[in-house]
């Protein structure tokens, strides 16, 4: 290890000569080694936890979602075509198909995001900070699998430059970077992210109401060559028509029009729960998200107050909407009432609430700072997000907007918590003063003599005065 360390340090460029190289070297060096710096001034020992480790825990919690998302991209693709409908059937094709979709997204996100991060670090002369570790892992998971890469690149650049670097880098941003990149796409290129077709990868509209799979490209054909050599199933050329009755709509899209009845006609409840439905890459599987949620809560990486507050807010909002909805649903009932009538737990497993509240809302930088504020913040995210989802027909899903909204208001929430703290502390001191007075009265008078008449006599013995 010592030898490796010596080897690596040999390459250290001078900071003065080439700041960019030095920043880059520094980033990789601190990635490879925990640097041998020791404490100076202040405390002499430091906690083993640093920001790198804090951030990487979130990335670790996301890994299962990556694996599931990769498989699910392929699974949805082939299910739409009526091929390999079994979960493990053609798993090599599904995984390869998923990887071919997800790797470019992942690479583009990181090249653009980290590239900007490195440039800014060089320019400002500080170390490359870890914030993008998490943002970069989250962004691919909240994107539709067929997103054009140039849009992704523009969105990431927008989010990192205007969302983070403009405010001073990691720890200073007021909005969640990953959501900012998504909201950019949402408003700048609405058709790419809110239409029906995009959620299942590789299906194109041939004619009105006719969908077929896109032609597979050379990468698929390369794998086909390997698979055929092994005697496994292959991709083929593509261009297959989708199965009858396939719409590619997400459960939420259906629910907004037809309520739970409409949803259950297309997807059964358990597949919504397990996540084998179309959607953004990483947000569909409830059990895996809950796994990540518990991991982050018990390791105290994500604050449980935001998550629990969010769950409470969601249930309160959900039951409230249930109460407003008419008790008997008929065919004439408007779709919005049918949507409102859906049981909150079913609302919860549809869409991306759990993913958003676990991985997005708990971002320590953009969320509220105070423990009390975090309860309020989590509650309001869920409550407002549910209202956006159900009551606003323009937006199929509400978490992105509600989290960004609450990111904006988090400092306000904190402000009131601090004001309350200031008042509470002043009150407490005043109460203690009364208690002190009582104690002194009970104790009676110890002679504390302060009469000005008392003659001072020199009591010292050295005379230095």
């Amino acid at each position, binding site marked *: 290890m010592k030898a490796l360390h010596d080897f690596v340090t040999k390459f250290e460029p001078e900071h003065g000569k080439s700041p960019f190289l030095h920043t880059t070297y520094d980033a990789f060096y601190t990635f490879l080694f925990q640097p041998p710096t020791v404490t100076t001034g202040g405390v002499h020992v430091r906690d083993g936890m*640093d920001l*790198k480790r804090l951030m990487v825990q979130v990335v670790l919690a996301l890994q299962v979602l990556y694996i599931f998302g990769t498989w699910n991209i392929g699974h949805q693709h082939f299910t739409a075509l009526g091929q390999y409908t079994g979960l493990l059937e053609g798993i090599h094709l599904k995984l390869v198909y998923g990887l071919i979709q997800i790797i470019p997204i992942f690479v583009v996100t990181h090249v653009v995001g980290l590239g900007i991060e490195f440039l800014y670090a060089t320019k400002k002369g500080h170390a490359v900070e870890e914030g993008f570790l998490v943002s970069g892992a989250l962004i691919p998971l909240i994107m539709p699998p067929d997103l054009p890469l140039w849009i992704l690149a523009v969105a990431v650049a927008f989010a990192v430059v205007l969302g983070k670097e403009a405010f001073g880098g990691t720890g200073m941003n007021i909005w969640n970077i990953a959501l900012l990149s998504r909201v950019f796409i949402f408003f700048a290129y609405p058709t790419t992210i809110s239409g029906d077709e995009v959620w299942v990868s590789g299906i194109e509209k041939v004619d009105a109401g006719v969908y077929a799979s896109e032609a597979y490209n050379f990468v698929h054909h390369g794998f086909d060559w390997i698979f055929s050599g092994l005697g496994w199933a292959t991709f083929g050329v593509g261009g297959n028509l989708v199965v009858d009755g396939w719409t590619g709509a997400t459960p939420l899209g259906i629910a907004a029009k037809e309520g739970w009845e409409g949803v259950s006609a297309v997807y059964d409840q358990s597949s919504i729960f397990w996540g084998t439905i179309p959607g953004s890459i990483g947000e569909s599987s409830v059990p895996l998200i809950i796994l990540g949620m518990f991991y982050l809560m018990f390791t105290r990486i994500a604050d449980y107050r935001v998550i629990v507050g969010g769950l409470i807010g969601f249930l309160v909002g959900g039951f409230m909407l249930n109460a407003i909805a008419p008790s008997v649903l008929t065919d004439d009932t408007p779709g919005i009432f049918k949507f409102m009538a859906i049981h909150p737990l079913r609302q919860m497993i549809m869409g991306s609430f759990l993913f958003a509240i676990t991985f997005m809302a708990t971002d320590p930088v953009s969320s509220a700072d105070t423990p009390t504020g975090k309860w309020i913040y989590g509650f309001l995210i869920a409550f407002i997000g549910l209202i956006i989802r159900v009551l606003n027909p323009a937006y199929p899903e509400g978490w992105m907007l509600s989290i960004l909204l609450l990111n904006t208001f988090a400092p306000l929430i904190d402000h009131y918590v601090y004001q309350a703290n200031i008042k509470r*502390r002043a009150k407490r001191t005043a109460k203690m003063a009364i208690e002190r007075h009582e104690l002194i009265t009970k104790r009676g008078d110890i002679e504390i003599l*302060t009469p000005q008449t008392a003659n001072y006599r020199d009591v010292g013995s050295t005379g230095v005065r």
Partner: protein
Amino acid sequence: MRIFTRSAGPSLLLLAALLLQSQASVGGSNLVFYGIAALALILFFAIVVSVADNFMVIESKSIGIQDEQTAGLFPAFRQIFASRTPDYLKKGHLYTLTKGYDIPMEGKPQDIIRDPKVTRFAITPPDFFGLMPIPKVVVEVGDVVKAGDPVFFDKKMARIKFAAPVSGEVIAVNRGLKRSIAEIVILADKKQVSRTYTLPSAAAPREELVEFLLESGAWPVLRQRPYNVVADPDVIPRDIFVSTFDTSPVGPDLSLTVRGRMDVFQSGVEVLQRLTDGLVYLGLDGRGETDSPFAAVSGAEKRYFRGAHPAGNVGVQIHHIHPCGVGENTVWTLGVEDVLLLGEIFRNGRYDTTRLVALTGGSFSDPCYVRTQTGANIGELLAGEAVAENSRLISGDVLSGTQKTNEGFVNFFDNQLTAIPEGNEAEIFGWLLPLKPRASISPTIPVLSDHIEITTNTHGEKRAFVVNNDYEQVMPMDIYLTQLMKSIIVNDLESMEGLGIYELVPEDVALAEFACVSKQPLQQLLRQGHDTMISQG
């Protein structure tokens, strides 16, 4: 037909039998029914066994077995739910602090007291806050002083005299940055001589007592909050606080310090009572099984504190007893050694700074206590000790102590000398795979031992504040530290005041600084905030 006198059992059985027979007609909710039936059955047997057990206890009592604990099969309810607080705490006034963290480091001192021969002692003006940088030194190199003789005073507050800790010859007046006085070194006599005092009478007015203390050289042991400065003689403090236990990492056991000197401590407390028209509070250790020896002190309000570090910090105790502030809420604080110094003057008429200094930390092969005076030379103090190579010497604890060398001197207020290994070694993927044991409040880092060989490695680099509420995790105070630190950085005086800067001194935020994932220098920031507040009046 005796069996029918106990009606509950058979009738329950009968009921169960009837219901079980009719289960076919119950239909879908069979599972619920079986559940209830099973529960009833278990409850029934539990009642039978417990009644039988009670009879057994009665029987055993009647044959003369008195011990109730062993007589029955089960523990009584009150035994299970009895709080585990020791008896002495039930009568006392107890504060249980749930927040905080005891750093699991090795090097806790054993109860061995050694007497190393130390010849050089120093009094260091920078140990006292709130002074001008260059005090007026009234002795010259070559002068002979007695313990307690004034050696310097502050140019602004000329009434406060700072005394020589030992008797002997002044051998050096060392200067530091910008010609400030770094330390005044005294070569101690073999036989210590103290100056003599004419004590003010017990009925003397407060002014006279204050004048005497100023003159005696003992005044600087009184520290004033806010800001932890040397107490202002013109201020009458609201209350005086003394913490009688030390929770800092591998900190000294202060009950050893007062062993055999309790009478001296008592007289010290009596002096304090005359200095305030309020109360003298003693913060007592509520963690042990037995009562703290300081509980015997009379004339002071006693408050027990229970919990991890920083429960023993006087600042935390003040926060819970009665928060301090500016103006009429100004309070004074002292350490146990400081009270002993006052007590020595008033009880034995001599200036005696004798104290136990704990030699602690992983670099000592044999951590123990040494008996010495304040400001002892570190090299001489450690002459007989085995200290590992590549270690850092710290006067004080690892959280708020000062780095020293062998040439340095123990700080005036410190009763602990810590040595821990330097962590100047890179660790491959140290942030991802913490293979070397390290202390952490994060559950993601497994801390398997209570005796970690903790090093001075920073375990990461400085970053912007990322608020993950770790500060709240370790600070048992109702203070939002992150926001306070941010308001210090932006010089927002009003927020600083409201958020509690008056209640904090650097040692109170040291644990938060330890826990900080962003590796922010909180103690330094707080000092900066204090400077701002003082300069703004």
